[in-house]
């Protein structure tokens, strides 16, 4: 059906709106799926939603019709006023009348417009919420690039693993965190992250500078689960995961623990204080860290 010339003709000339709406929708969808920057994803999302709205509005178009507001001759109050002045009969007071079928053709269909008003509102609400999430993510990870966020989350979980394992009194065997992770990773993002990890060397310097930040949040994820055996535990923990650089990681996780243990339900400010000491302790160390993958 696609090679049929008339279809193409129809699509491009008569139904340009439908065609462009598909194009915009695809641009938006591609932006949402493939873009790496979170704000870019949101712009894609907005384009996607606007494209759908364009479709609905196109549905409501009627050839030769005016906007869905009554013309003066149909206006319930306009006619009411003029008639009332002229003869003042009872019928005139009840000015509005049901429009005839011929007149109905003269007005555009109001229903799609109403639906789209609601859709626009929902769109802006989603946008606002997602922007707040971006801010929150930036606070936690110091970046809004999806691959970097995933890398940081991965490192954090690697680091917080030992402290969980030690929860049991005896030393239990460490488990494969890698397989866990690859399973649990969101599909959309995992595709980009594998690609990105090859381009890591360029970003290494950046990681070194942001590593302190990552560490602080790593400590944060540990702190809600305090455990008596914490200080002993970190050493066993680092032993368990061989791929990890020992010195920096063990130091950084063991440092904030005593503080955070003392107040398990510390509020963010208090936690931030605990983490700042960790930053101090590790800031001078060079980071020969490479992603595990």
């Amino acid at each position: 059906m696609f090679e049929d010339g008339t279809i193409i003709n129809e699509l491009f000339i008569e139904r340009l709106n439908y065609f462009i709406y598909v194009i915009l929708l695809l641009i938006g969808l591609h932006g949402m799926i493939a873009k790496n920057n979170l704000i870019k994803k949101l712009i894609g999302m907005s384009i996607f939603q606007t494209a759908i709205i364009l479709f609905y509005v196109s549905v409501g178009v009627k050839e030769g019709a005016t906007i869905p507001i009554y013309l003066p001759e149909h206006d319930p109050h306009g006619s009411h006023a003029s008639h009332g002045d002229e003869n003042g009969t009872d019928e005139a007071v009840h000015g509005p009348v049901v429009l005839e079928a011929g007149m109905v053709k003269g007005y555009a269909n109001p229903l799609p417009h109403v639906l789209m008003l609601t859709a626009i509102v929902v769109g802006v609400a989603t946008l606002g919420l997602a922007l707040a999430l971006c801010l929150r993510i930036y606070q936690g990870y110091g970046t809004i690039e999806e691959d970097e966020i995933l890398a940081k989350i991965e490192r954090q979980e690697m680091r917080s693993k030992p402290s969980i394992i030690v929860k049991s009194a005896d030393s239990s065997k460490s488990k494969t965190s890698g397989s866990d992770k690859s399973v649990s990773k969101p599909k959309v993002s995992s595709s980009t992250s594998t690609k990105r990890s090859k381009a890591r060397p360029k970003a290494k310097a950046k990681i070194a500078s942001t590593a302190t930040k990552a560490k602080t949040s790593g400590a944060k994820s540990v702190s809600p689960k305090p455990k008596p055996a914490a200080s002993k535990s970190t050493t066993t923990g680092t032993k368990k995961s061989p791929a990890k650089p020992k010195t920096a990681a063990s130091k950084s996780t063991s440092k904030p623990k005593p503080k955070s243990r003392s107040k398990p339900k510390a509020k963010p400010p208090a936690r931030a204080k605990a983490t700042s000491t960790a930053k101090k302790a590790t800031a001078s160390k060079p980071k020969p860290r490479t992603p595990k993958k």
Partner: protein
Amino acid sequence: MMENAIAWILIFPLFGSVACALLGMGNKKICYPIAVLSMAGSLWGGIETLRQVIASEVHTVSYIFGGWTLDKYPRGVGIEFHADILGILITLVVLGVGFIVAIYSKLPVQDETPNKEPLFYTLFLLQITGLAGICLTGDAFNLYVLIEVAALTGYGLIAMGSNRAAAATFNYVILGTIGASLYLLGVGYIYIKTGTLNMVGIQDVIVANGLADSSTMQVAFVLVGIGILIKMAFFPFHAWLPNAYCNAPTVTSSLLAPLVTKVMIYVMIRMVLSVFGVEFSFESTMWVDVMPWLVVVAIICAAVMALAQREIKRMLAYLIVAEVGYMVGGVWIYNYYGLIGSIFHVISDACMTLCLFLGAGLILRKAKTTHFDGLRGLFSKMPLTMTGFFIGGFSIIGLPPTCGFFSKWYLITGGMVSQRWEYMVVLMFSTMVMVVLFFRLIERIHLAVSESGENLGHGHGDLGLAKEQTRFDEGPLSMLIPLLLAATVVLVVGIYNQDIVNLIEIFLSEFNLPKGEGH
């Protein structure tokens, strides 16, 4: 008051949430009673509506907002609430789960999201409003708005957790928006062909105009279907679910995990049966041929992933993905018994998932971890919690007399009758996986066996367990009672399964579904 019971279902939580937002600013403590009371009121409305639905002759209650009644105005002018037996059953599940979680929420909310109680309860109640509305509404576009209400509150509730939760929520936002937008687009395609948005009206126009072969309607079906599948975390689209539910605050995950996916499955059943119609959905599309195989892949992948997890919440999240596969399969094997099984499984899965997540919340509170290695010997420490937790677990496995057994029974019957052997095999396989999962847990929790297989006894004495670990130490009552309540519900639904199945049969009797072999 009585005739408006169906409206009160939504009015209670709606006004309750606003009251939480307004009054909660002055006094945070007032939010919890408001939430519990409005849930109780809403539950009353639900039960009253169920009574009305059963009492009515056509077994539906139709309520049109704004007084645009059918006798004076065409159908679809106003927005209709169309409660049939299925809708009101699922609504009751939503309200019941909401009520139990509301009771449960007191302490975890205080501890996990300090100073945010008013915000939390506002979003909590609006979430219930959205979900209950989804179950009741009879208008395709209103359904979209309510889906967005439920989704946005869900984003807010999940993102209240850690930074990790925020990152997970962002993925959820993107995928959720794609899903909802595709649904909206599908509704647009329906509208362009039928000119109405009322679900009953759409069905009438499809039948009257013979739209079954229209390519627009076919595409509309695909768009609506994919949108809903994304929202329900069906396997290839499940990416948002595990991370979001694991990192969410306790109460959030125990509210969202039992409800969101199940309600979306209900939406799918509703779309298939009463919007597009049985003939259109099963005869005119290729979904019947394709979906069972996708379900097979979905269940196997989800079960294997669940097996790989070492953390209770994450494991449960993958179990949910597998359970979604069951229910979707039950619909698409296109069989009377399969559908009974699907619908009954929606109900029982909500109950047992609630049970498990409430239990996991208590474990997290007491043991400070939900990682498998932190659970040894917990049974002697908190026997009631663990009993409740494992009643949920047994139900997931499908042991009688829990409700999970009966729903699985119907699903398997459906597979057998329609000769979908692949579906049956995969059900058996995932049951095996769940047996392994839960008995591994039981071993750890009950018998206190260490990783190396060395038996440490029942947690007595000094066999590897410190003194404080063996002390009887249950969680707070405000959390324990809801858990036990949920466990009782699992058993009660199991024992009285015949009554529920009878109701479902009344609902399904008006559809022309094959009861015998083939299709």
